[in-house]
């Protein structure tokens, strides 16, 4: 079915509602993966939009509970696109030069299996400016 009007949106509402109920039973805010994509001009010019959509789709596809949001300039313009990944109970990690391939690797190896994936930007100083 094509979604074209608000009335069409109402029709898919019930389906989505069922899905949410199913998920809620297994969900716990602490268990959610949090990903932030740097979205300043340098990030956007380097492809942050595409990376963000890709990550949203991949998480959804893999059934991972995650929130993907945007953040300001993390100060690593030379390494855009950059993303910050925060696994439950772990310190946030920032990856630079994130391509779709890299994003896939981060999801499959770091997020799902907890393995180390290279491309991490060492945290010398951290000034996320919002």
């Amino acid at each position, binding site marked *: 079915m094509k979604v074209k009007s608000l009335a069409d*949106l109402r029709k*898919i509402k019930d389906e*989505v509602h069922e899905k949410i109920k199913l998920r809620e039973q297994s969900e716990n805010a602490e268990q959610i993966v949090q990903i932030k994509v740097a*979205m300043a001009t340098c990030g956007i010019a380097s492809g942050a939009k595409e990376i963000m959509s890709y990550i949203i789709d991949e998480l959804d596809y893999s059934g991972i509970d995650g929130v993907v949001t*945007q953040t300001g300039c993390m100060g690593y313009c030379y390494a855009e696109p950059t993303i910050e990944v925060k696994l439950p109970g772990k310190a946030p990690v920032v990856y630079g030069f994130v391509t779709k391939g890299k994003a896939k690797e981060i999801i499959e190896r770091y997020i799902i299996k907890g393995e180390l994936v290279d491309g991490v930007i060492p945290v010398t100083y951290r000034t996320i*400016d919002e």
Partner: protein
Amino acid sequence: MKELSLHILDIVQNSIRAKASKIELRITEDIDNNQFEIQITDNGIGMDKVFLDKVTSPFVTSRKTRNVGLGISLLKQNAEQSGGFFTINSESNKGTIIKAVFEHQNIDRPILGDVAGTMTLLIGANPQIHFIYLHKKELEQFYFDTEEVKNEIDTIPIQHPDILKALKELINENLNDIKATIN
């Protein structure tokens, strides 16, 4: 930037940083006058006169992570290179209006591109913000308002991936209907 939709994404980031709770995108295609106009209005913290007068310079930013701010100057440059112009109006504690006008047929005008993707990405990442998108093409227009969407889906969060996917489709279908110039 390859697409105007990326400039839009970028300029809206300024509005978000300025703590806007309502952001309106208005695109007007006036074929007769060969104009393609993008206007972004927010109700954020705005800028005072002194800051506003120098804001189109790349060396002006309020960022602490670096001392260049490129978003506005890039858009201005792009509009001017496409036979158009750029204006910005702002008032402290009231908000900001940015307008970039391009020659519709100018070979240097970037395509609009994936504006539906830009909108849904912004909505997903900032579900609390009230977004409006109005696209006018000659006598036809498409009006999109996240408050209307929220009323429709009531308890379901607007940032749910299925809702965002549906909204992207809704925007694209309607833009197609009014024959909006995307590419």
